[in-house]
């Protein structure tokens, strides 16, 4: 059950296999990654959640969307505390909290990855243009980026869902749009440093187009930044999506398992000592974000060593 799933390539240079020294360098880098307790710990947790997202039914005994009924046809009951049948207890509608937590991994991870990936793609394109072209186009886009950065994410989420709608696609798009400027700014500074190097001048001197210089010359040199940025953005996207769900901005079907929505629905029972229906989804969010951040930090550190 503990399958090692490498969600994130060990380093930006992973694609490369030419040359024995390079292979050695990569092996050493991988070894360094796995010698870091933070990375191993983070990987295990992420691997667990990926497994949950991929094969939820392997781990769960009950339908997460319905009131839990044992094989004997017996109801588990409402707000039952954690026990042998329902490891994480049941919620106010009598559903198995464990099943819902496991099943909740898939939507949030898929959406967070989609939103972060979109933001990284768009941000990379913008960052390349800003960092390489400079001049008025950089000024213009930079002002846009700053304007976007000053917007509170949650407020925009509320406004956008209210005006456009609460569909899953809209939510992913909103998060992606809000993250794009952040990525663009990070990528821009990496690109800008590269654009000052002489190999770019040399490309200009043999008549390469701007497009070619950005995509083929500079881009491969900023992939390390982009990998780290993607990992960090995934963590933030998880947090943002959970928050939006908690505020009830992501769809109205309460039967679908969703960590954020479950917390929103159950936290008012906390004063009644019914802690399990809130704490377990909350822990799920926390462990996933912490784990992704641990991985991102280690990759960043190893890239720089």
């Amino acid at each position, binding site marked *: 059950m503990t399958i090692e799933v490498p969600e994130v390539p060990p380093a930006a240079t992973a694609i490369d296999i030419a040359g024995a020294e390079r292979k050695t360098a990569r092996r050493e880098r991988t070894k360094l990654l796995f010698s870091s307790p933070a990375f191993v710990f983070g990987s295990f947790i992420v691997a667990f959640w990926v497994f949950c997202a991929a094969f939820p039914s392997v781990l769960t005994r009950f339908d997460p969307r319905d009131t839990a009924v044992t094989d004997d046809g017996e109801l588990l009951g409402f707000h039952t505390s954690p026990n042998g049948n329902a490891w994480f207890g049941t919620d106010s509608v009598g559903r198995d909290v464990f099943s819902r937590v496991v099943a909740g991994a898939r939507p949030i991870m898929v959406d967070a990855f989609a939103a972060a990936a979109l933001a990284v793609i768009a941000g990379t394109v913008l960052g390349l243009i800003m960092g390489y072209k400079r001049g008025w186009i950089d000024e213009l886009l930079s002002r846009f980026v700053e304007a976007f950065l000053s917007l509170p994410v949650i407020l925009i989420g509320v406004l956008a869902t209210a005006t456009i709608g609460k569909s899953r696609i809209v939510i992913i798009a909103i998060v992606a749009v809000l993250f794009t400027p952040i990525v663009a700014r990070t990528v821009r500074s990496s690109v800008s440093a590269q654009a000052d190097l*002489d190999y770019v001048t040399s490309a200009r*001197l043999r008549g390469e187009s701007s497009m070619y210089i950005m995509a083929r010359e500079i881009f491969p040199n900023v992939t390390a930044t982009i990998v780290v940025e993607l990992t960090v953005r995934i963590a933030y996207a998880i947090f943002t999506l959970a928050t939006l769900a908690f505020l009830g901005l992501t769809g109205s079907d309460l039967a679908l398992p969703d960590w954020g929505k479950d917390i929103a629905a159950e936290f008012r029972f906390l004063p009644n000592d019914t802690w399990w229906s809130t704490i377990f989804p909350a822990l799920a969010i926390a462990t996933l974000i912490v784990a992704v951040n641990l991985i991102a930090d280690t990759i960043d550190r190893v890239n720089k060593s």
Partner: protein
Amino acid sequence: MTVTDDAQARPTDTAETPALRIDNLHLAYKVRGVPREVLRGTSFEVAPGEAYGLVGESGCGKSTSAYAAMRYLPENAVITEGSIEVAGKEITTMSNSDLRKLRARDISMVYQDPVASMNPSLRIGQQVEEVFALIGQSKSEAAASARKAMVQVQIADPDSVLDRYPHQLSGGMLQRVVIAMALASDPTLLVLDEPTTGLDATVEAEVLDLVRDLRHQTNAAVLLIAHNLGVIRTMCDRVGVMYAGKVIEEGNAIDVFDNPQHPYTAGLLSSIPRKGVRKTDRALFAIEGGLPPIGTELPTCVFIDRCVLADETCRTVVPPIVQRSEAGHWTRCHHPDRLDEIVEAEPDAVDVVPTGETVVELKGVAKTFKQKGRDIPALVSVDLKIGAGETLGLVGESGSGKSTLAKTLLGVHSLDEGGEITINGRTIAPAAESRIPKSLTAMQMVFQNPDSALNSAWTVRRILRRTIRKLTGVTKEEADRRVDELAEGMQLTQRHLGMRPRQLSGGLKQRVAIARAFAGDPEIVVCDEPTSALDVSVQAAILNLLAKLQTDDRTSYLFITHDIGVVRYLSDRIAVMYLGRIMEIGETDVMFDGPNHPYTEALLSAVPSVDGAAEYRIPLDGDVPTPANPPSGCVFHTRCHRFIKGVCDVSEPELIDIGGGHALRCHIPADELLAAQRADVAAR
């Protein structure tokens, strides 16, 4: 031994104790988690009051040794064996608080880049006073000491300097301040790590003079790290030659430089273009290969891979220390008597005679940058002709406009309207982007820093293939075939072609960059300090390669450099630039015979010599004025030692041909200049 602060007791106290003793030091850096050995048993001593120089190519461990002397090492450094004693105190095991006290009192360091060693947001005065406060002086005492220290390092106007911020001072001035701070505690040992590397030769000379003067005043021992052998020779009593983390030869500076006893030292010294050697005389001696990467196992002789004398003994037996003179000159070599066999092995000189047909012509080329609405004329009406197969050397201090000229020629900057650049009589567009392929192909560039010049994500083959395809428009297969041809001409192997720049040594990287410049069969190649980022042993091979390519292809070079030896070796003609103007231009021999423009005269006098030639230096006071606000009249009059009041500050002289293509921009007639210069030489 007891340590005392009593200045009286110090000389006798330390007379028998070396200021610095490093003994069998083994030090490794952890890279990607694996410790890699950099110092492989480094040992040397610096006696009190002595100046000791460490030379060797970059990566040999000389800077690491310097930092180890302060135990000021990066986090990933591990000392695995050996000891470091400063003034008799072992510092490898010293507690951090004791170490801090030691650094405050006994040992000081001057780094390569003075700008980076100062806090940009504090006034100079504050930072200098801080150093004195650190050794226990009161606020008023510290202020007085700071002023005194400025006077000591010959800063003419101490109060105004103390009141300024680091960015308001020039590099040379700032380095004086840093030296003053380093000497504040009257240290036992002063470590200078490439103190003049980032400075112009003229400023370098001044700073070195200062350090020499101060040594006599303060009695501090000096550990000087420099890759410039001339600097070491003029500054140091004794030198150690370092290779792959080991001192392989040591002795008095004069002995080591005049009579080297290790194959590496001998090779190094004969790879420098000196004693006025020209490319038409002979090729330079080059040491093949490069320094082994850090962490490589080197069980016997560390130099074995590059040594032409290496035999079975060298492979199996660790070379002993062989004493070569009474004065303590020793070498770590099995065959110090066979050194004659290695040097002067390359007789094939270049013979390419410029025919005089012009390839590139610049007419009234000017470049004005705009900054905050102000015009900054970086290049003022330059006229130049470069002939087929000719090398035009371009010299001048930084800020003189050499690089602007090169970049304007290449179209990186567009020249101002009114000027014109022609190739073979055909006018070309100002910006590279609007030039037709034929114009792009005709002109290529070799950059100063090969790390920056090559895309580190690409393989060498891809870099070359793309350039060939783009510049000549051939098919992929044809381009691949040409890459192989090109690589062979540059002495690059198939193995190198599959590598990425990061995996290559500096010299190999520069070969790739040169290969790229020659990929489209250019008419002219602009070389912007192509060897200044390289070690001298590698520099020789690159200069030989450039000379050979020129013979084969009759390519012209515009060769920018600050190294007078290099420019003399390679150039057919030399142009001297100052503040965006050509001050003097002429054939190389003529330039070194005179008469010279006073600026050229000062530049030529500023070079520290490896040959130990008697030195006379014409000081260049102050800094290069800003091009935004050039001086009236002759732009050089503010620093000229032959300044005539009422003439030079009133009208700007023309560039006048005095015969044989030798032109000067000076009010003093050529014969008077020559007479004055001869008289000065005679007077020394």
